[in-house]
């Protein structure tokens, strides 16, 4: 069982996120980290390969400036190798442009299964993996909260409004995993050392045989008119509980006629 995991490398969400004032795209300077949302896919992939008794985990990432720090984290967790697509022509790519690049890379790797997160932390469009599946001509099962594989199929518990559906798909397929699916491991010291020498294949748009006009800002077809701070709610009254705070809550509920 060979599993490819789409991993996004993003600016640290704990820091200030900002848009470039002229291009209105996310500023991606400085060090990027592995999107926490994708650490679940990496862990799931490692467990599935282990359960299948053979195969390997390959990472696929599209990122600016040949950024590999996020990939190293995932390699340290145990992935065998990575494919990194980095190209100036990719600046400003939207989800569909990204999916085109990922699809071309996945076609080279030919895995049995592709895992991705239900949505990334910075862009959270949640559409990239499904667009990828359509471009590959594969089935997709989104919102997996449990994943099992057999040699030729994948069985998924897919979240629904009311509970979950049990979905079985033939391979190859794309599956998106939620954060509840597994507990990602912390890279061990040995893993971190080993990750340094694991292969990262770096590719450009031309290497993938894609037209620059189909990806990047040119493909995005969206004109940003303005960016403004959302209307803020104001903080109200803050009280410290001295044993009677519940009475304040009761009074408040009475005042708004909930009680």
């Amino acid at each position, binding site marked *: 069982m060979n599993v490819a995991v789409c991993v996004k490398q993003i600016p640290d969400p704990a820091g200030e*996120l900002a*848009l470039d004032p002229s291009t209105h795209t996310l500023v991606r300077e400085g060090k990027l980290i592995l999107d926490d949302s994708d650490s679940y896919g990496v862990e799931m992939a490692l467990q599935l390969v282990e359960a299948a008794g053979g195969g390997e985990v390959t990472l696929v990432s599209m990122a600016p400036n040949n950024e590999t720090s996020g990939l190293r984290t995932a390699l340290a967790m145990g992935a065998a190798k990575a494919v990194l697509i980095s190209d100036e022509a990719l600046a400003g790519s*939207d*989800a*569909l442009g990204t*999916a085109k690049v990922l699809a071309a890379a996945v076609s080279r790797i030919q895995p049995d299964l592709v895992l991705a997160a239900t949505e990334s932390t910075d862009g*959270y*469009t*949640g*559409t990239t993996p*499904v*667009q990828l599946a*359509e471009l590959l*001509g*594969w*089935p*997709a*099962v*989104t*919102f997996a909260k449990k994943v099992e594989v057999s040699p030729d199929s994948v069985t998924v518990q*897919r*979240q629904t*409004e*009311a*509970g*979950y*559906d*049990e*979905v*079985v798909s033939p391979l190859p397929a794309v599956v998106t995993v*939620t*954060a*509840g699916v597994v507990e990602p491991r912390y890279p061990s010291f040995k893993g971190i050392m080993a990750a340094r020498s694991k292969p990262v294949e770096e590719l450009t748009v031309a290497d993938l045989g894609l037209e620059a006009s189909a990806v990047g800002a040119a*493909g995005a*077809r*969206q*004109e940003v*008119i*303005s*960016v*403004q701070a*959302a209307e*803020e*709610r104001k*903080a*109200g*009254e*803050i*009280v*410290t*509980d001295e*044993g009677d*705070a519940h009475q*304040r*809550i*009761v009074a*408040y509920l009475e005042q*708004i006629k*909930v*009680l």
Partner: protein
Amino acid sequence: MDRIWVLAEQRDGEPSTVALELLAAARSFAGTVGAVTWGSGAAEAAATLGEHGATKVYDAGDVGDSLPGPRVAAAIAALIEAEGAPDALLVGQTYDGRDVAGRLSARLDRPVLTNIVGLSAEDGALVSEHAIFGGTQVLKARFTGESPGIFLIRAKSFAAEPAGGGAPEVASIELPDTGATDGAKVKGRHEEERSGPQLDEAAVVVSGGRGLGSAEHYALVEELAGLLHGAPGASRAIVDAGWVPYSHQVGQTGKTVKPTVYIACGISGATQHMVGMKGAKNIIAINKDESAPIFTIADLGVVGDVHTVLPKLIEAIKAHQ
């Protein structure tokens, strides 16, 4: 704008609330509003869709054990081929809505505009408002490509309101065979038992977070919600931890709620949580950390321990009733 289509999910003849919200938006912008629906019960759903402003309902029929994404997208692509593209396709940001929009996007080679929380018309074109950076900023954008623009819209961005429309014209459309992309099949459906009002429709929502300390303490949240005839909700942290089912989750990847009052118990107030509840009319927060971000939006903030405040609050409300 001339024509707008809405992707209208329905179940047993009842359209989803977000579909009705999108119809309200669509009819304010376009003369002709179409609704694309599927599944058993679509015929019964048509009447409600018409009442809410759909003049034409395209019924793709039953998808059986297929996931809707690939085949419904193919049906819409075929419809566009036959009737021409509408100016816009409005899709609710739900599980299946996202799948259909993503598939259609790749098929038509059109982007999907996502996380939309508002729409307006400027110079005859739709301008979309997007919640970015966890809803802290609003970006306005215009789709510049060839129609249809595909707009993925968050629930509760518009108010659903019947328009008094009559019965719509109903047209059956075909669900094309999409081969390999339709390989995934639903083998079983599991529904959680629930009682009380729906989380996204309740007037009172009481939510618990990691500050509850353990799964057992969620009972306090449920009891308080029950006393107030409300629904219990949750942060993602405790959904991921397996304390409560995902259907309880409020926030960016969960439900958007706009109750009369939202009571957050042991929830820090991450942007991804707040984007789903800051539309509440009143917010009460209980958190032992006075610097918790949730206090920046609470109308009444109680710095205190949920394990002492909640039991007393429950007793006081019981006594009150």
